[in-house]
């Protein structure tokens, strides 16, 4: 019971706050803007073609309704919530008959797949290498690894992805420039291998950055943990080093890492967005890029809202795993 009351309920309340803040921010931003999205969209539409004035009026009314710009601000706000709770993100302005929900529906799977796989790989790699480097700080490989990852870590995601793109699709064209897979989706080796082939570079760009972050943290935590009494005792008891490191030290460093993962999920997601539009990967990032280029505010708004809710939920789920691996929380 105490677990529920002291851990799960507050965390759940926090999740609700995030959703509330997220929806409110996405509601407020377009209204604070000096640019009127309705006029802007209409101007954009009339740039390339002549539209009947009556149709423009009708369109203006539709757009006003769409952005929920009718009525008092409070009414607008309530209506906005109603729409969001129904899961309706409105129509896309650029690719009109499609709704934003459909646009996102097509691309979200790619993003989740790419991000999920990359996080898993980066997590395992960063934890293992970081623990090893923290435990054996003076070997040549741990120093070399640390120096190279420290150099890579601060480099902006975009630069990292772009350099990879230049290197492996232009100068050394071994990876495809664009796309997520070849052929139609099927459970065949051919299709799956093409998915892996297309996803390799975008995943690599996320993995490098995320591994560096995980490595630096794991190494610092392991270095601190290594000076604990229990480690010295285990060493004196001549336990195998591998066992001390992976059974005791790493397990103790796991907790802050899990907390950090749930906090850094937003940044990782941002990295995935960038990787996707750099490599033309058919996920949410590319959808958002297209929306930016077409001035499709509604799609951008929908994607922003969805990513806030999605990341908040994912980080809630990660935090709920916490009691499973921390005996202190479990047995209290």
């Amino acid at each position, binding site marked *: 019971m105490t677990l529920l009351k002291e851990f799960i309920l507050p965390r759940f309340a926090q999740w609700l706050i995030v959703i509330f803040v997220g929806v409110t921010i996405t509601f407020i931003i*377009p209204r604070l803007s000096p640019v009127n999205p309705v006029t802007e969209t209409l101007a954009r539409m009339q740039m390339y073609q002549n539209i009947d004035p009556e149709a423009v009026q009708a369109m203006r009314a539709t757009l006003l309704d769409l952005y929920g710009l009718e009525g008092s601000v409070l009414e607008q706000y309530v209506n906005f919530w109603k729409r969001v709770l129904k899961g309706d993100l409105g129509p896309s302005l650029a690719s009109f008959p499609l709704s934003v929900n459909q646009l996102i529906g097509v691309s979200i799977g790619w993003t989740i797949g790419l991000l999920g796989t990359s996080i898993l790989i980066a997590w395992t790699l960063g934890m293992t290498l970081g623990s090893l480097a923290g435990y054996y700080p003076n070997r040549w490989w741990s120093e070399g690894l640390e120096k190279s990852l420290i150099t890579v870590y601060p480099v902006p995601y975009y630069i990292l992805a772009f350099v990879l793109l230049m290197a492996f699709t232009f100068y050394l064209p071994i990876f495809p420039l664009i796309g997520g897979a070849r052929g139609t989706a099927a459970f065949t080796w051919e299709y799956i291998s093409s998915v892996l082939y297309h996803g390799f570079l975008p995943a690599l760009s996320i993995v490098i950055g995320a591994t560096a972050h995980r490595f630096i943290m794991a190494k610092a935590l392991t270095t601190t943990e290594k000076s604990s009494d229990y480690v010295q005792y285990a060493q004196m008891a001549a336990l195998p080093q591998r066992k001390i490191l992976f059974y005791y030290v790493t397990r103790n460093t796991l907790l802050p890492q899990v907390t950090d993962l749930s906090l850094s999920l937003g940044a990782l997601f*941002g990295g995935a967005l960038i990787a996707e539009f750099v490599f033309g990967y058919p996920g949410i990032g590319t959808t958002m890029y297209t929306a930016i280029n077409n001035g499709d505010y509604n799609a951008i708004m929908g994607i922003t809202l969805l990513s806030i809710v999605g990341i908040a939920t994912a980080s809630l789920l990660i935090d709920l795993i916490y009691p499973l691996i921390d005996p202190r929380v479990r047995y209290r």
Partner: protein
Amino acid sequence: MANDVLRATIRDLFRFSLSFRFGSIILMIVGILLLLSFFSPFESDDRRVVPRNKPPSQEFILGTTGTGQDGFWLLTFAIRNTLMVSGVAVLIGRTIAVMVGMLTGYLGGKTDRVISSIVDSIIVIPRLPLLILIAAILQGEMTVLSLALLLGILDWAHPSKRYRAMILSLREREFTHTAIFSGMNAVKVVVQEHLPFLIPLLLADAVAGFLWAIGMEVTLSVLGLSDLSTPSIGTLIFWGNYHHALLRGRVWILAAPIAASVLMVVGFYLVSLSLSEYLDPRTRLSRLTMEE
């Protein structure tokens, strides 16, 4: 007095920390490039002042662009603008962070719990989509200053938590009680007694802010969402891509801003790494024992 301490610190860092030596040398190069922008023979928006699309040569060390600008002088402007944007962003972000952190840390109790849970929630929100939404809606109206403002407003939640933790521990110290009992009010205690303790943490933390702000400036510009007429690291890459520099074999147009951005962030990061290592009491202890 304070000056002497600072000088001694820098001397120590230079002597004992390899990463500080490297980092400060890199930052010095970046600083020189920044200062050179004030002596540029061309204005940053002068077009067609040199032959177009020339590869790097003795006359034009970093080549020239498709708009007839000298790559080297353009880069100095870009470094200046990018650092200005991130500098203002860091200043705004840290100011908010310090205020929030001090307030919650010092007041404690219910106020602390409410504000802390709001801060925890804000940390979870992914900032890139939010930035893109704001920038997309402001498109055309975005200036260098408003970008800096925007980045600053979005970058305070994480540091404020760290400052709060610091203030929380300072609040229980003896000197805080002494100050309160001798009649200092809360604001004075926090500003005069606690702020000095935050400054080292603030310095190391400002670098993290710089890294983030530079990355976001580059990302937003590459997406075409910032003020594209002002040269910055991001806009140079944007225009390079826009004119298909890579496909036309004009790599120098892209290589210069990429190399400059990497130099900048690595320099900052190495300096912050050595600073936080220096400030960490545990490593300081081991360093002292090593010196003996």
